[in-house]
């Protein structure tokens, strides 16, 4: 039952190597890529633009729509192209996370569309997707009170760990996966899901780990955004 060593040699509280880039899709109003280990998410934002059909329009404020999907070949067993139940749920929880930081009061009747695609998957895709999406929203100039940073923590065997990869998620003797998204400046938890089995004390430890890692992700996100605008100024 003792989990002594992670397959890729990381410390238990160590996330995979992360990388972020802003402005990867020229045609979009905002775009970004977020990579954690072998998981790569790309996101594009279009809008604010007119919302069709018109009965969906909200005269009070703009609408946020979010679609998460995986490319068919991003996983070992080909995923059938097109929407899935899993994708629909992830789209919804991602949308809720993003909604808690964006302010669309200035855009009545309009829609801001966020499209997230996973081009390569090795666990933690919804978190990578959120990290990319929130940078794309900032890149599109959508008013926001803060960014969102997300990481999956959990328990593998008897150890609380940070940023599970696929091997760890599939660990034979049991694994608990807890995707968490945090508003870094306030520390609010805006996405929390859990699959597995974990004690309250362990969950508290995992959440602490998530906060610490999200603070690091926040730095990476801000740096990538600043870099994009530095390049923009230099052009």
């Amino acid at each position, binding site marked *: 039952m003792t989990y002594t060593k992670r397959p890729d040699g990381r410390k238990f509280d160590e996330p995979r190597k992360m990388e972020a880039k802003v402005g990867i899709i*020229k045609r979009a109003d905002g775009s970004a890529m977020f990579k954690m280990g072998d998981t790569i998410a790309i996101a*594009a934002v279009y809008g604010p633009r007119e919302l069709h059909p018109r009965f969906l329009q909200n005269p009070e404020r703009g609408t946020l729509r979010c679609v998460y999907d995986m*490319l068919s*070949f*991003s996983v070992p067993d080909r995923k059938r*192209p*097109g929407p899935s139940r899993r994708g629909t749920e992830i789209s919804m929880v991602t949308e809720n996370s993003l909604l808690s930081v964006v302010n669309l009061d200035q855009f009545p009747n309009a829609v801001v569309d966020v*499209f997230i695609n996973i081009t390569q998957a090795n666990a933690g895709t919804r978190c990578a997707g959120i990290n990319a999406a929130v940078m794309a929203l900032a890149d599109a100039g959508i008013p926001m009170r803060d960014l969102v940073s997300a990481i999956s923590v959990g328990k593998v065997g008897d150890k609380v760990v940070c940023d599970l990869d696929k091997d760890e998620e599939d660990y034979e003797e049991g694994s608990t996966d807890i995707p968490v998204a945090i508003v870094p400046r306030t520390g609010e938890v805006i996405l929390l899901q859990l699959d597995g089995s974990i004690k309250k004390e362990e969950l508290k430890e995992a959440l602490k780990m998530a906060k610490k890692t999200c603070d690091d992700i926040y730095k990476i996100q801000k740096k990538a955004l600043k870099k994009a605008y530095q390049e923009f100024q230099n052009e």
Partner: protein
Amino acid sequence: MSENYILDLIKQDSRIDGRKLKEFRKPVKIETGISKNAEGSAKATIGETEVIAGIKLSLGEPYPDNPDEGTIMVTSELLPMASEEFESGPPGKQAIELARIIDRGIRESKALDFKKLCIKKGELIWLVFIDIYPINDAGNLIDASALATVAALKEVKFPKLEKNKIKYGELTKDKLPLTKIPITCTLVKIGDKILVDPNSEEEQVIDARLSVAVCGNKINAMQKGGIEGLSFKEIDEMMDIAFEKEKELRKAIQ
């Protein structure tokens, strides 16, 4: 950008991005190995247009009329990420046409030896799934998709097979039976001029389009698009240009 402005420029043999009529955008380039869980993958860039293609292999039963042949399945999804013109949902006409043009280029050129994709006659074959995703549509998705597809096919390594089950993630050294590489070049007619590699703005004013898949000195597939007709002379000229551009595009694959 007004349509008349684009049309006026083309009449004078010039284009909004400063290119000659028979000039591709730059760069034309390929990046391979972009998705580790695919048995082969590639991103093709033509100017600002970016398309990624990935190949997954799986096992299936052969068609009764070709019991000793494997086969390919090509799909494309026009991600709403790639353009404000694309919407989520089941593939529309444009996505289906795109996938079918690519399918025919590969199939008709006999680039893949389907017989070598047969594991047990009448029972078990390799299915080659080719999935195409435009990431940024800045025009000419057809040529970019065709390039990404052949580059991805070239990269494919078969996964291990154990008791007729695939062990994904464990690749062998065996490559696909790819005997040649077809190249697709799309020519468009605007007014009485013929252009290659239309950008998004030019695509709005196209009168007719002809996509030609060529390999060596053979034409393997063609697809005409657009409403206006083409004269024999124009078709003849388009074929000549396709063969000329084939060499240029092929360089990106090597």
